[in-house]
C-alpha cells in the first residue's frame, strides 16, 4: 500500500472526537410542521404580533416552494414533518455569573473546548452560547453595553430593541429568499444579534458556539449583525454536534449589514458530526449567509474552515453596493469518508471601484465529493471594479472528487476579473523531499496540507487559527503507521 493510500485509509478511520450527549432535560415540541408549530414557537418566545405574522408569511411561502435540486450533492429526501422544530433546556437560566449555570452544561462547554471562565479572563472573547436553540448565557454583556454595543440573542433583542430587529431582519436575506431561508424564517428558534453603534470599534472578538444536542431536532438559528457607520467588529462562529445516527438538519441564516466606512469580519469553524465511515448519519448543513456593504468604503470578510457535516451547502455572499466597498472570502473545506460539500461564494459588484477577493481551498479524501460553486457578477454601474478568484483543490485518494463551478457575469467593460483554479495531489516529490530530511510521512502530509491552507488560516483570528489547525491535524493524524 502506498503512503498516500495509508493516509487516506487512516483518515477514514479516525473517529469523531466531539461525539457525546449531554443529559439535560429538555423541553421539546413533537415532530411535525404546520402553522400551529410556527405559532407555538413564536408564542413560546413571547414575540410581538408582527413577528408571528412575519414567520407565518415565510411559512406560507415555504409551502409553495420546492426543494432546490441543483447542488452537486446527493441525499435521501428530507421529510420535513419528521423533525421536531423546537427544543430548549428546561431550566432557562437567567443568571448573572457563571456559578449559577448548570454544572453539567458547563462541563459540556468544557468538552467542547470553550472554557467560558478562561476565555473571560484570558482571551477576552465574549461568548453567546447557543445550546440547542436557546441562548443560555451571554457573557461580557455589561462591558459591551458601556460602549453601546448590543450583543444578545435574537429573542432578547426582539424584546429590548424591537425597532432595530424589525428594521434589519430579513433586509439582506428576505424571508422568502429560498427554500431553506424561508423554512428558517418560519421556525428559527434563536440566534445572535449584534449592533455596533457609529464609530465604535468592538474591543473584543464576539463569539457564538452552536451545538446541536437533542435527538432529531433541527437547528435553525438566525444571526443578524449590523455595523453602523465607521464601526468594526470581528465575529466568530464555531459549531459541533454530538454523534447521532439520524441525519440532523441545520438551516441557518446569517445576515450582515455594513454601513459607510464600517467593517465586519465573520469567521466560522464548522466541525459538525460528518457521519460515520459508512456515511451513516451526520448533519445536513444548508445555510444562507449574506452580507450587504450598504455604505461607501465598507468592508466584509468571510473566513470559513469547514471540516464537518455530512453535507455542507453554503455560499456566503457579498453584495457590494457602496462605492469602494470590499468583499473577501477565504475558505478551507475538507471532506472525508462520504462527506459532500458544495460551497463557495457570491460576489455581486454594484458600486463603483468595488473589490473582491476569493481564495478557496478544497481538500477531498476518502469517498467524498467537494465542489466549489461561485458567482462573480459585475453590474452595469460597477465602474473599475476588480475581482480576483483562486480556487484550488487537493485530492487524496482516487475515490473522491473535486469540482469547480465558477460563474462569471460581466456587464461593465472597465471591470477586471481574474479566475484561476488548479487541482493537484500531495506531491510524491514533496513527501520524498521531507522524508529524506528526516520528517515522517505523517508530518510531511500535515505540513504540506497546512502550507496549502495557510493563505486562509492567516485570515482567521488568532484563537481560531490555532483551533482550525488542530482540527485539520486531527483529521490527518495517525495517517502513517
Amino acid at each position, binding site marked *: 500500500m502506498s503512503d*498516500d493510500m495509508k493516509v487516506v485509509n487512516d483518515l477514514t478511520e479516525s473517529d469523531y472526537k466531539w461525539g457525546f450527549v449531554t443529559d439535560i432535560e429538555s423541553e421539546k415540541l413533537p415532530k411535525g410542521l404546520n402553522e400551529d408549530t410556527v405559532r407555538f414557537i413564536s408564542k413560546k418566545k413571547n414575540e410581538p404580533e408582527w413577528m408571528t405574522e412575519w414567520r407565518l408569511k415565510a411559512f406560507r411561502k415555504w409551502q409553495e416552494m420546492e426543494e432546490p435540486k*441543483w447542488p452537486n450533492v446527493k441525499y435521501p429526501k428530507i421529510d420535513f414533518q419528521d423533525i421536531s422544530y423546537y427544543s430548549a433546556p428546561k431550566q432557562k437560566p437567567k443568571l448573572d455569573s457563571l456559578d449559577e449555570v448548570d454544572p453539567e452544561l458547563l462541563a459540556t462547554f468544557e468538552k467542547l473546548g470553550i472554557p467560558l471562565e478562561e476565555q473571560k479572563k484570558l482571551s477576552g472573547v465574549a461568548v453567546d452560547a447557543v445550546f440547542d436553540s436557546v441562548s443560555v448565557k451571554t457573557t461580557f454583556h455589561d462591558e459591551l453595553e458601556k460602549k453601546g454595543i448590543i450583543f444578545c440573542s435574537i429573542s432578547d433583542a426582539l424584546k429590548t430593541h424591537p425597532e432595530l430587529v424589525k428594521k434589519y431582519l430579513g433586509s439582506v436575506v428576505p424571508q422568502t429568499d429560498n427554500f431553506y431561508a424561508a423554512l428558517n424564517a418560519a421556525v428559527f428558534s434563536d440566534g445572535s444579534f449584534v449592533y455596533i453603534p457609529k464609530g465604535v470599534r468592538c474591543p473584543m472578538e464576539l463569539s457564538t458556539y452552536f451545538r446541536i444536542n437533542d435527538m432529531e431536532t433541527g437547528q435553525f438559528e438566525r444571526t443578524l449583525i449590523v455595523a453602523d457607520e465607521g464601526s468594526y467588529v470581528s465575529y466568530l462562529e464555531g459549531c459541533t454536534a454530538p454523534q447521532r445516527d439520524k441525519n440532523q438538519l441545520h438551516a441557518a441564516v446569517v445576515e450582515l449589514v455594513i454601513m459607510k466606512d464600517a467593517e465586519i469580519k465573520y469567521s466560522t469553524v464548522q466541525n459538525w458530526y460528518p457521519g460515520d465511515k459508512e456515511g451513516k448519519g451526520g448533519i445536513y448543513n444548508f445555510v444562507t449567509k449574506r452580507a450587504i456593504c450598504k455604505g461607501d468604503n465598507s468592508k466584509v470578510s468571510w473566513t470559513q474552515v469547514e471540516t464537518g457535516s455530512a453535507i455542507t451547502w453554503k455560499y456566503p455572499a457579498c453584495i457590494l453596493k457602496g462605492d469602494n466597498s470590499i468583499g473577501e472570502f477565504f475558505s478551507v473545506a475538507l471532506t472525508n469518508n462520504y462527506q459532500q460539500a458544495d460551497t463557495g461564494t457570491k460576489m455581486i459588484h454594484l458600486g463603483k471601484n468595488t473589490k473582491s477577493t476569493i481564495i478557496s481551498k478544497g481538500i477531498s479524501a476518502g469517498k467524498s465529493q467537494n465542489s466549489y460553486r461561485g458567482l462573480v457578477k459585475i453590474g*452595469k454601474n460597477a465602474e473599475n471594479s476588480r475581482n480576483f478568484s483562486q480556487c484550488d*483543490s487537493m*485530492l*487524496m*485518494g*482516487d*475515490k*473522491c*472528487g*473535486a*469540482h*469547480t*463551478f*465558477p*460563474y*462569471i*457575469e*460581466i*456587464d*461593465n*467593460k*472597465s*471591470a*477586471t*476579473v*481574474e*479566475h*484561476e*483554479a*488548479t*487541482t*493537484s*495531489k500531495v506531491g510524491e516529490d514533496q513527501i520524498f523531499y521531507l522524508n529524506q530530511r528526516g520528517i515522517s510521512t505523517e508530518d510531511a502530509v500535515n505540513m504540506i496540507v497546512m502550507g496549502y491552507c495557510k493563505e486562509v488560516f492567516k485570515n482567521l483570528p488568532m484563537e481560531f487559527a490555532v483551533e482550525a489547525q488542530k482540527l485539520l491535524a486531527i483529521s490527518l493524524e495517525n495517517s502513517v503507521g
Partner: protein
Amino acid sequence: MNKDKAEKSMINKWAENFRKFEAGLNGESKSEFHKSRQNAFKIFSKLGFPSIKNEEWKYTNLAKFHKHEFVHASEIEEVKYKKEDIEKYLFKGFDHHLLVFVNGKYSEKLSCVGETENNVFIGSLCDLLKEKPELLDNVYKGENNTSAITALNNAFTQDGAAIIVPDNKVIEKPVQVLYLNGTQNEKVHITPYNLIIAGKNSGVKILTSYNSTFENVYFTNAVTNINADENAHVDYYKIQNENENAFHVHQVNIEQQKSSNVSSYSLSFGSQLARNEIIATLNDEDIDCNLFGLYLGKDNQHIDNHTMIDHANPNCRSNELYKGILDDNAHGVFSGKVLVRQDAQKTDAYQSNKTILLSDTASIDTKPQLEIFADDVKCSHGATIGHLDEEAMFYLKTRGIPTELANSMLIRGFVDDVVQTIKIEELKDQINHIIFDHLHKIEI
C-alpha cells in the same frame, strides 16, 4: 399552462415542417436512413427547445429565434452560383480539395475535389451513403441524443461533407469546405451533417467556412462528427462568418482513440445568435486534444461557446484556449467543462478563457468548470475579463502612436495567441484580415 401550450404549438410548427420535408423525399421515406430521421424527430419532440431554465442554456435565450418561421432548404428553389461568385469566399494561397454546399446541399458543379488516392473519400454524405450504406450506423447515434437542436438536425439531415481517410494515409492538401447560406426571400433552415473519419496513422486538415450570400434571416443547424482512430492526426478549422441576421447552432462531436491528436479551431465572427458546441470524448490513452477558439462580437450579436472534454482514460492531455473581443451591445458566453473520470490518472488538462470588453454595453458570462474524480492529475483553468490595458495604451501614445492604431496593436497582440496556433501559414493573414474587418478597426 400557457407556457406548455406555446411550447406545443412550437413543436407542432416544426412537425408540420417535418411532414412537408418527408413528402418531398420521393419514395425515400421507406429507407433506413429515413427511419433514423423519424426517430430523431421523435427525440426532438420529446425534448423540446431548451429554455434558459436549462443550465446549459442559462445565458442563451432563444426567444428571438422562435419569432421566425423557417422553411427547410429542400423546399426552396435552388440558388444558382457561378464559379466566379464563390471566389471571394475562398481561402487562398494553398492547394486544396474543395467542397461547396449551397444551403446545405452539395454542389458538384462548384466543387473541385481533384485527384484523390484509393479509398480516400472526399465528397457529399449522400454519395457516401449510396456507396457504403453500412456507415449509416456510424452517422446516427440518435438515441442518446440529449440536445434537441442536434436531434432537429438529424431529423432534417439531407446532406453534408464526408471525408473518409483510410488507415496509414495522410492527405497532404487541406480540404476546404465552403457553405454558402441564405436566400433572397425565404427564411431557410439549413441542416448540414458532416462526417470526418480518420483511420489509423492517418492525417487530414479540414477547413470549413460558413458564409452568407444574402442578408436575409436563416437558420444554420449543423452537426459535425469527427472520429480519429489510433494515432490519427486531425486539424479541424471552422470559420463562422454568417450574416448578422442569421442563427447558427453547430455541434461538433469528437471521438478520439489511442495516441490520436485532434486540434479544433473555432473562429466565430458572424450571426445574430451563434452557439458553437464541442464535445470531445477521449476514449483511450495517450490522446492529445486541443481546442482553440476566437469569438468577436459587435452590434447586437450573441455568441455562445460551449465545450466539454471528457477524460475517460489515463495519460491524456487536453489544452483549451478561448479568447474573445466584444464591442457594442454584444453578449458573449463561454462555458467550458473538463470532466476527469476516476480512471483518468495522469491527466493534464488546461483551460483558459480570456475576454476583452470594448464597450460599456458589451457583456460576458463565463463558466469554466472542472469536475475531477481522479487524484493524480494536473488540471487548471483560468478566466480573465478586462479591457484594453490603459498603461500599454498610454505607453504607445507617448511614443506618438495615434489612439486608433494603438487600439489595433493591442487587439492584434491579444488575438495573436490564437491566430498563431493555426498550422496553415497562408491562413493566418486572411484570418487577421477578417478580424479587423469585422471589428471595423485599422488592420495591422
